[in-house]
């Protein structure tokens, strides 16, 4: 996937002003908005029809006005692993973000994914950069959402990782599955699993913390991407 040029984007947002503004902004930066959906169902139809490079969606949308947008995003991630997804939200909790990047999609590399607070759109240059990262298969999480992980009692936990463990974590953050990490590092999958176990232990992540893989990645992203923590 090469996204130095035009991206084909489907956006889903129920508020008309936001939707139109977003479309105008994307077009201004040379991207093509192939469809602007007003609800989650329409989003899924548009994705099936247009097969865009990137989807930008709100979380709370009709028909149920709950987390319909996020559910649609997860469905797209499962059904079209190559499509990058950016979820825009007003919600500060990290559970949505965690769900979004929970398991790497099948294939050598899952499509990129991002979770940003809605007003980030106004930081136009940063926003477009985030979109590029996602289109390139990377992961972007709003620093305000993961901000608290940074200040949690283990700020230097990443420093305790060995070089190999760091490398594994970096590949995890890029959405690689265990098998592909193993292939990339020329080690067995068992060795990768062992490394990951060590990473979890060093980062102080317990099994009951939910998805440890996600949390480890969040911690990594937090430390690795200071440029978006403005």
């Amino acid at each position, binding site marked *: 996937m090469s996204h130095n040029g035009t991206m084909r984007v489907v956006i889903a947002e129920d*508020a008309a*002003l*936001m939707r139109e*503004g*977003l479309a*105008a*902004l994307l077009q*201004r930066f040379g991207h093509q908005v192939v469809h602007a959906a007003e609800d989650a169902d329409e989003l899924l139809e548009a994705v099936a029809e247009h097969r865009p490079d990137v989807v930008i969606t709100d979380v*709370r949308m009709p028909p149920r006005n*709950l*987390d319909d947008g996020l559910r649609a995003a997860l469905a797209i991630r499962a059904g079209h692993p190559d499509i990058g997804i950016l979820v825009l939200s*007003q*919600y*500060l*909790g*990290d*559970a*949505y973000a965690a769900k979004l990047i929970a398991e790497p999609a099948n294939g050598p590399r899952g499509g990129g994914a991002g979770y940003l*607070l*809605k*007003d980030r*759109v*106004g*930081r*136009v240059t940063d*926003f477009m950069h985030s979109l590029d990262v996602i289109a390139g298969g990377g992961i972007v999480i709003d620093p*305000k959402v993961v901000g*608290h*992980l940074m*200040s*949690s*009692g*283990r700020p230097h936990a990443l420093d305790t990782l060995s070089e190999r463990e760091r490398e594994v974590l970096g590949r995890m953050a890029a959405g690689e599955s265990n098998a592909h990490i193993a292939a990339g590092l020329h080690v067995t999958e068992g060795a990768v699993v062992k490394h990951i176990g060590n990473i979890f232990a060093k980062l*102080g992540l*317990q099994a*009951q*913390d*939910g998805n440890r893989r996600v*949390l480890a990645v969040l911690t990594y992203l937090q430390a690795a991407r200071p440029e978006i923590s403005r």
Partner: protein
Amino acid sequence: MYHSAALTALRDSPVRFWFTRWPWMSLAYLAIGGLLWVPTLLAFALIGTIPYWAHALAIAERRLVRLAGYRPIPGRRRGLPGLQEPMLWREIAFALAHMLIGLFSFVLLVVASALVVAGFMAVFLMAGVDAPLGRNHADPALLVLSGAVILIAAPYVGTLLAYVKGALATVLLSPRVEELQTQVTSLARAKIAELDRFEGERQRIERDLHDGTQQHLATSAMRLGMLELEVRESFPPGPAQDSALESLEAVRRENELALDTLRDVVHGLRPRTLIDDGLGAALRELARRVPILATVDVEGAGRLPLPVESSLYYIASEAVTNAIKHATPDHLHIELAQTATRIMLTVSDDGLGGANSARGTGMVGMYERAALLSGELIVDSPPGGPTRIVADIPRPR
């Protein structure tokens, strides 16, 4: 033994008892009973009115027992008891007993009064005053003696009679344990309904903020971004552009600050995770948001009614906030344990301890939430720590 203040006074000092208010109150109790005897008799004569009169009589009696030195009997919920309710039959039984005791005390009262009056007359007779009733067959001295004995004995007999009647009323008219249980359950339901309304209100506010204010602010943030592009295009690079961009940045900062504040408020109202994924997920998210090492142990993943989950989350959130703010712990632990009948939320930390409700309204709110769930809040926080706060509530049915 049924506790009666009148009987206690009698036992404490039988002599002084004579001069207390209790003889008079017992007398009044029996006299009122005597007066109510007539309508009771009428009610039993007209079979159909029995339940109504029995119920009215029971309502009156529950208060009247105070005259006999008893505590007022707690009533049942309003309205005539249904035919299937044991309370109705007990009320009718009391009306029947009341009729018999009423008759007995009525006769006793009449005879006693007659003898006392006769005694006084005899005194006058012996004093040489002309007998108002003409010839008298009884021996005046005997009449005086019996009148005096009755006068002295009447308060004791009357009080004992009132005691017996009051005891009977207490036995028959008190709500039974199982009936109290039903009341407790219905009260608990009412509280849950109240919480439901409360939650509904929060939900409305949250939705209004999300769909309204937050949306407008986010849209204006985006418009500011577009404006920035226009400024860069329209103004040549230089002081004019810099000044315009500077103003724009100031506005944007205010806008983002407003959004940040608003997001915190909305999150405090109702974390979305709680609604989407339940208490366990919300507690884990809560633990991840604190700036110290926090562990979570959630047992039983099943969802509880939203008002219950919401209240427990509120308690956990308050406890965690308090701990971070005041106790500076190194480690914090949140535990949710469930049995078939109870739900227990525990928040413990290894901080400085000394948590109490005097430390602001947060703790009071926690107590209130626990009470609204018909449960209790146990705070164990000695100075120096550690602190353990447990919300122990019955599992809602």
